[in-house]
């Protein structure tokens, strides 16, 4: 960066620092790693959706030549789970199984064939229990027994979590409305489908465990290993191998990670396990199927007076991030639209399916889908332009929402204008079957609170500088989103280098300080800020050393650090001068979001130091004869605050559009006869390149006051508006509402048939089940202009007795 603040590398579309390794095949994924004497592990999984385990007999398996160890649940009895409130998984179960695919036993053998043969030889006897396969069933009294012990869940039946909030006076809000509308939506579950299957390799040497894994969160895996294996954290090292795609699917600690670690400890040999594609469908943690009921009051002009949202989540067999997901289906509605009174009730249920968890957008695509279509319908009912209705309700920058979420920079208006202009949405020509749809959305740039309660930084970066140059150390894991590139770019910017000049050591718990990991779109914002702090400190030291050595007097800030030079000397010389002056240097930087959460229990889910905003228009053709849909083009504008690398941001936006198309039109993690209907990459349909429309991406830069160089997130938010925009475009094209995902051709024809019979031109859920959400926690809304954060906010809470 030059002394006048002009950016040199930030904002330039440079290739990612790992681009060559990725495309030439030198990136080493976990499954590429081989160590001498390495064993192969396979995991035996439940064939029953719900059953008690009566016995596990491993004697025959142990006798097979080449089998080195067999584990059962008794070897790993300690429960774990990503959320402290939901410690409900075991690496291998010994009491009961909760879905087809639940791990029961594991084998380490000299090769995979032998391991597989050993699995075949393990005899497990089960007592099948009545499976629970839907939201409706999960709400009924269990036939045999609840999926989880109510003593652990402290809930009735198969309820996992319940939330119920009322912000402001909802009744008064509805009373003030000229018009009230209710709608029902269903968002189907789907999975991440990363190219790379999960894989982990462990060694146990000299009392120290090392695990290489395809994970998004080395720190959380570290914690889970310590807990389950009862080892101190300093005797465990977790290293993130080159990553072949996560999307949220590698954000939990997984059975196979714990299993290979234990097997390495038992055998004294390295052990690797790579999941099969089928097992990846069982590891899952993907999109929750969610049933959503929405009721909104509006004035004649289309201003929202109150909103009431109910959600019911099909959580699958375990908790995973579910306690947060249930909140996310309802909390972020308020950071796009100013809702003066808001009631939200949500329930997450256990079912006998692969556990759901966080998938790109974590819990918010479902709620977003519903609210966008709901507002679209309200607008049409009132005879208002659906975009105009939304705009009348858009949140304003630098305000606080009814549920206390603090909004800072917000480029919703600019994003909207960009896509409307570019797409010609307003004056669109009409031909039969052609439609256009619009939607808007918001997403978090990292969660404001950590998963386990603590006051420590969320991200830390250390820089080392010696006579050979500079190295950055950070626990962040590049899962393909480009976080390594962001780190290198930030450091390079501050030290006047090119990103490729910065050496990186990331995601290695021995070498790097903690970063909480690649989830909730937090890395650019948080690790970026930490890197910025560390780099500025390093720059200061460099400048000091150079000034001293070259006899420069006066303001050190006047010394230019740019284009590989520090003042009058080259960067290389500067490193030597600095090492001469100080010895090898290290600086660190860290980031912890300010306290922004509101003064009520459960306020920790939803706050983020900044929200990204997106708007999009979809253009498609829908064939009334076949129900088939062809998306022609997507215009999408994303308020990323500042694009640290616009090429990488566009990549994230395009990837989001791709994933959204899959969710909108074909992907379904569905079950038949108690098991996953098609755990296969051929049968589970996800779009190919041929289904991809042209995408025109606009980056809107609102320069957030708290983001690094003003940056906000880009990895998840752009997915959100695309899905409802597709449904809106289908309505535009054919005059039918498909109020659920995915829009299969069958559903289109059923809605057309319904219309032909004089019924509602709609396909979607018909009933929201009765759920006892309990009395809501009532929360007084904040002053929308009160933007205090941190200690100031805490003092205010204390004064108000909150």
């Amino acid at each position, binding site marked *: 960066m030059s002394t006048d603040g002009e950016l040199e590398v930030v904002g330039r579309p440079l290739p990612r620092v790992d681009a060559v390794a990725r495309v030439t095949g030198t990136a080493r994924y976990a499954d590429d790693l081989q160590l001498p004497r390495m064993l192969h592990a396979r995991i035996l999984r439940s064939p029953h959706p719900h059953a008690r385990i009566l016995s596990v007999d491993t004697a025959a398996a142990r006798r097979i030549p080449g089998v080195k160890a067999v584990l059962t649940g008794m070897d790993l009895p300690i429960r774990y789970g990503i959320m402290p409130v939901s410690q409900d998984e075991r690496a291998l179960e010994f009491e009961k199984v909760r879905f087809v695919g639940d791990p029961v036993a594991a084998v380490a053998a000299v090769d995979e064939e032998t391991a597989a043969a050993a699995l075949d030889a393990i005899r497990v006897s089960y007592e099948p229990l009545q499976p629970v396969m839907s939201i409706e069933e999960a709400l009924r009294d269990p036939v045999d027994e609840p999926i989880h012990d109510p003593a652990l869940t402290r809930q009735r039946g198969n309820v996992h979590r319940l939330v119920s909030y009322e912000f402001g006076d909802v009744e008064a809000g509805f009373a003030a409305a000229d018009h009230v509308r209710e709608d029902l939506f269903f968002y189907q579950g789907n999975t991440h489908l990363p190219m790379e299957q999960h894989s982990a390799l462990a060694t146990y040497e000299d009392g120290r465990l090392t695990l290489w894994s395809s994970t998004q969160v080395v720190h959380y895996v570290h914690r889970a290993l310590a807990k389950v294996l009862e080892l101190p954290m300093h005797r465990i090292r977790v290293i993130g191998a080159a990553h072949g795609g996560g999307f949220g699917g590698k954000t939990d600690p997984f059975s196979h990670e714990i299993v290979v670690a234990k097997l390495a400890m038992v055998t004294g040999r390295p052990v690797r396990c*790579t999941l099969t594609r089928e097992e990846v469908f069982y590891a899952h943690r993907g999109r929750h199927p969610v049933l959503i009921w929405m009721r909104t009051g509006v004035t004649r002009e289309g201003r929202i007076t109150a909103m009431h949202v109910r959600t019911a989540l099909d959580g699958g067999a375990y908790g995973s991030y579910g306690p947060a997901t249930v909140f996310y289906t309802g909390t972020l509605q308020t950071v796009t639209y100013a809702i003066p009174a808001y009631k939200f009730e949500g329930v997450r249920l256990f079912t006998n399916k692969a556990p759901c968890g966080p998938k790109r957008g974590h819990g918010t695509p479902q709620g977003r889908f519903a609210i966008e279509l709901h507002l679209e319908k309200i607008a049409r009912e009132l005879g208002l332009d659906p975009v105009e209705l939304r705009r009348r309700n858009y949140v304003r920058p630098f305000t606080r929402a009814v549920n206390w979420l603090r909004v800072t920079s917000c480029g919703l208006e600019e994003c909207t204008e960009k896509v409307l202009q570019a797409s010609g949405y307003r004056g669109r020509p009409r031909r039969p079957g052609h439609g256009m749809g619009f939607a808007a959305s918001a997403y978090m740039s990292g969660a404001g609170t950590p998963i386990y309660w603590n006051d420590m930084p969320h991200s830390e970066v250390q820089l080392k500088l010696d006579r050979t140059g500079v190295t950055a150390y950070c626990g962040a894991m590049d899962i393909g989103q480009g976080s390594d590139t962001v780190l290198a770019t930030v450091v390079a910017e501050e030290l006047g280098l090119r990103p490729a000049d910065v050496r990186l050591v990331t995601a290695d718990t021995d070498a790097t300080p903690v970063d909480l990991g690649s989830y909730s779109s937090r890395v650019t914002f948080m690790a970026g800020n930490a890197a910025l702090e560390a780099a500025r400190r390093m720059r200061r030291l460099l400048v000091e050393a150079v000034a001293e050595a070259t006899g420069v007097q006066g303001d050190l800030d006047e010394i230019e650090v740019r284009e590989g030079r520090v003042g009058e000397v080259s960067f290389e010389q500067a490193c030597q001068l600095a090492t001469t002056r100080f010895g090898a240097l290290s600086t660190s930087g860290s980031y912890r979001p300010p306290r922004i959460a509101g003064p009520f229990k459960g306020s920790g889910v939803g706050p983020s130091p900044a929200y990204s905003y997106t708007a999009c228009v979809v253009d498609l053709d829908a064939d009334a004869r076949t129900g088939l849909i062809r998306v022609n083009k997507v215009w999408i504008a994303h308020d990323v605050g500042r694009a640290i690398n616009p090429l990488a941001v566009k990549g994230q936006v395009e990837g989001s559009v791709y994933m959204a198309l899959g969710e909108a039109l074909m992907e379904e993690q569905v079950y038949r006869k108690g098991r996953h209907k098609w755990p*296969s990459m051929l049968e589970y349909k996800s779009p190919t390149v041929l289904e991809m429309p042209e995408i025109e991406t606009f980056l809107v830069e609102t320069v957030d006051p708290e983001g690094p160089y003003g940056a906000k997130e880009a990895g998840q938010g752009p997915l959100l508006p695309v899905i409802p925009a597709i449904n809106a475009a289908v309505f535009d094209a054919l005059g039918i509402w498909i109020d659920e995902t995915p829009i299969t*051709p069958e559903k289109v024809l059923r809605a057309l048939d319904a219309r032909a019979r004089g019924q509602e031109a709609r396909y979607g859920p018909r009933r929201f089940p009765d759920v006892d959400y309990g009395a809501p926690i009532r929360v007084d809304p904040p002053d929308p202009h009160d933007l205090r954060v941190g200690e100031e906010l805490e003092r205010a809470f204390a004064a108000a007795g909150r």
Partner: protein
Amino acid sequence: MLRLPRLRYLKPASAAAAAAAVAEVGPRAVLVAGGTDLLPKLKRRQIEADTLIGLAHLSELRGVRGDARSGFELGALVTLTEAAEHPALVEGHPGYAEAAGLVSSPALRNAGTVGGNLCVDTRCNYYDMTYEWRRSIGFCMKKDGDVCLVAPGSPRCWAVSSTDTAPVAIALGATVVLVGPDGERELPAAELYRDDGIQYLAKPAHEVITALRLPPADGLASAYVKLRRRGSIDFPIAGAGVALRLVDGRLERVRIVMSGVGSHPVEAPAAGELLAGQEPTPEAIAAAAELAARPAKPLDNADLHHAWRKRMVRVVVEQALQRAVERARARRP
């Protein structure tokens, strides 16, 4: 990773030797050409074998011979890419080339062969799953079990014929050349199939297909329309192969054969006859398509809803007829 079982791979000196080898080794031997259908199935233990009898090295089975005037002979090892891109074939029997070009994906077409495609296993999404999955739900009669999971109570298997090239081949009146231990025979392509999801081929396991013979073009216009979820990779969930002649504005010798609707490529002779002698008006075509589609009864064992697939059969038949008619019109001087 799913692993292949331990296998012995034999390279017989000729097609006849390959046939003899299969006969000799018995049920645990299986012929392999491109391996694109077979190898995944071996990994999933849908097919159990310990010996692969390789054909890929047999140059006698390669190459496209002949031309539009005399008819074509496609060696069984001709790849689908070669068939799809062969200029004379594209000109002479566009429907066949089109079908070959719609199989799966470019990579699989580079490996997959004409012979292998004719023999591709019938499909069912209760069957095209791993061993563990099938064991979990309970094996079905197509492999390791004795019931049908799609149609419980059914005495037979309804797995779906999913070859893309067979419908047009049959519609064109193609023949296949087979070599067995007792010598060679030639069979109408239609007679290669049986209406049975398990024993779907009407040939003994040891007979080797050496060639597919397509008739002289002789005014025949052909087309293949394939319905699948995505633009690539997917097997047909309904397909229609059509061959017809348009003589003085009237249709002659119309053959309509469908894929993805039954356990064998299903011909609709009545629909073909309905069109014979008629002008190819949209109404006539629609009526024939309706008639052709009527017997199709898709089950819940393939992609998308079976009721929707049922509705789509007539759409693909109609589209294939229209396309073939257009081609016939374009061809006339």
